[in-house]
């Protein structure tokens, strides 16, 4: 690792390591790989984080305002339904983050970009938190609506298993000391898990279903008031912004940790202090 640390910083990945295929390929992928070297990405993410965190805060305030203040009371569920503004976006995010992890893992395994493993690792805790939040708020919603904190329903169960997958990923990656092996092993697990997530989802749907149908479906008009929908979408966007900001922040820490032996890290203002 330390031997060629500085050398390797010039290229972010093996792909443009000299033996690449041809120039057009290089140009097409050029934009994509411009920020693949951790050094470049460290600078870029440093600039992006304030924007994403700011947008996250603003959207959360707006979403909560619309959801808790403006949206009408539900005819059947009363005020209790308002937890939907946390519950549904959290469930969405927990699934989207797993897909994002699978995406980065795929990139990492095929193009051997060093950043991908760090991105996957940075996303996992956020995904786990959202899966947990989704289950927690679901329980708080379920008690007044169904009369039980927990029911063995298809979606609850598959969300729980998704949480297990996240925890498995975190457990595996934290048990491996060698960073290269950690990234690759994590990537394989994330990919295997991502193939399994839809299978798990359909298997438990088949097994048992009590949960109300999806609140928003692409094929038919949404079955909820526009203000409710707006609040939910605002909250979903807010969670997106939060996830991106937190993941970027975590990636920066990981980059510093991994590249601590290199000159560029040691010459950083924040490290020198």
């Amino acid at each position, binding site marked *: 690792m330390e031997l060629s640390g500085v050398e390797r910083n010039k290229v972010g990945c093996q792909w443009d390591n000299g033996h690449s295929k041809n120039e057009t390929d290089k140009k097409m992928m050029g934009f994509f790989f411009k920020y693949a070297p951790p050094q470049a990405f460290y600078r870029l993410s440093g600039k992006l984080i304030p924007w994403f965190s700011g947008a996250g805060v603003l959207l959360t305030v707006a979403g909560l305002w619309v959801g808790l203040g403006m949206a009408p009371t539900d005819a059947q569920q009363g005020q209790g339904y308002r937890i939907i503004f946390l519950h549904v976006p959290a469930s969405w995010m927990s699934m989207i983050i797993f897909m994002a992890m699978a995406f980065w893992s795929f990139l990492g395994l095929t193009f051997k970009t060093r950043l991908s493993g760090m991105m996957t690792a940075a996303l996992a805790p956020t995904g786990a938190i959202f899966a947990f939040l989704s289950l927690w708020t679901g329980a708080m919603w379920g008690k007044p609506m169904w009369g039980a904190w927990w029911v063995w329903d298809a979606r609850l169960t598959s969300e729980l298993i998704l949480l297990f997958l996240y925890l*498995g990923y975190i457990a*595996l990656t934290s048990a491996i000391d060698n960073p290269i092996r950690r990234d*690759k092993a994590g990537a394989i697990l994330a990919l295997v898990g991502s193939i399994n997530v839809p299978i798990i989802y359909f298997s438990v749907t088949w097994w048992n279903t009590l949960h109300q149908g999806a609140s928003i479906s692409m094929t038919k008009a949404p079955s909820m008031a526009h203000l409710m929908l707006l609040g939910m979408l605002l909250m979903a966007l807010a969670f997106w912004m939060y996830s991106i900001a937190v993941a970027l922040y975590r990636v920066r820490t990981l980059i510093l940790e991994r590249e601590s032996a290199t000159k560029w890290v040691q010459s950083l203002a924040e490290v020198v202090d």
Partner: protein
Amino acid sequence: MKAFTAILKRDLRVAMHRKVEVLSGLFFYLVVATLFPLAIGSDLDILRRIAPGILWVGALLSSMLTLGRLFEADWQDGSLEQLVLTPHNLSLLVFAKIISHWTLCGLPLVILAPVLGLMFDLPIEFVLVLMGTLLIGTPILSCLGAIASALTLGLRGGGVLISLLVLPLFVPVLVFGSGAVESLAAGLGSQAYFSILMAMLMPAVFFSPWACATALRVAFE
């Protein structure tokens, strides 16, 4: 292909020298199945209802516990590294090891299951369906488990880690495996469950040796 059969033969021969290790997984299955009536009570109506679930969970745990044997011993004595270094297709060699694992740890469960089924007073046709689902399901468990076993090779706390990784992935097999008997009990027939289990077996057999081979190469990098 020669290397494939050589590995298969070698694994089986090695296992024959350590018979207790092979039998311990089977014994574990028997013990787990015995614990449930002791914990729940000897009411045959209840036992008959929960038998498919118990026998499937037992099979799941038993084949998970035996996963350590898949690569660990070969890793310790260095022969696994030699396998990775050979010019042969590693996926194929890994596939041979998966097959030998199933023959030693999965197949005995399938054969023992009817005996346990009778202990739970399951009717004969239910027992046959249970055997069928185990026959298709246990290879899937071996395939998925092999990936986790390759990923956790040589890590501290490997055993617990394997169970964390593998049990969530086993869920669909468990659902459809035990669901087949439930569905038969409800008078709906179990054919759909067999089709789905087969549909899960195919990609598992196709992708898992490849994923294992990648994971093993990573472990030796």
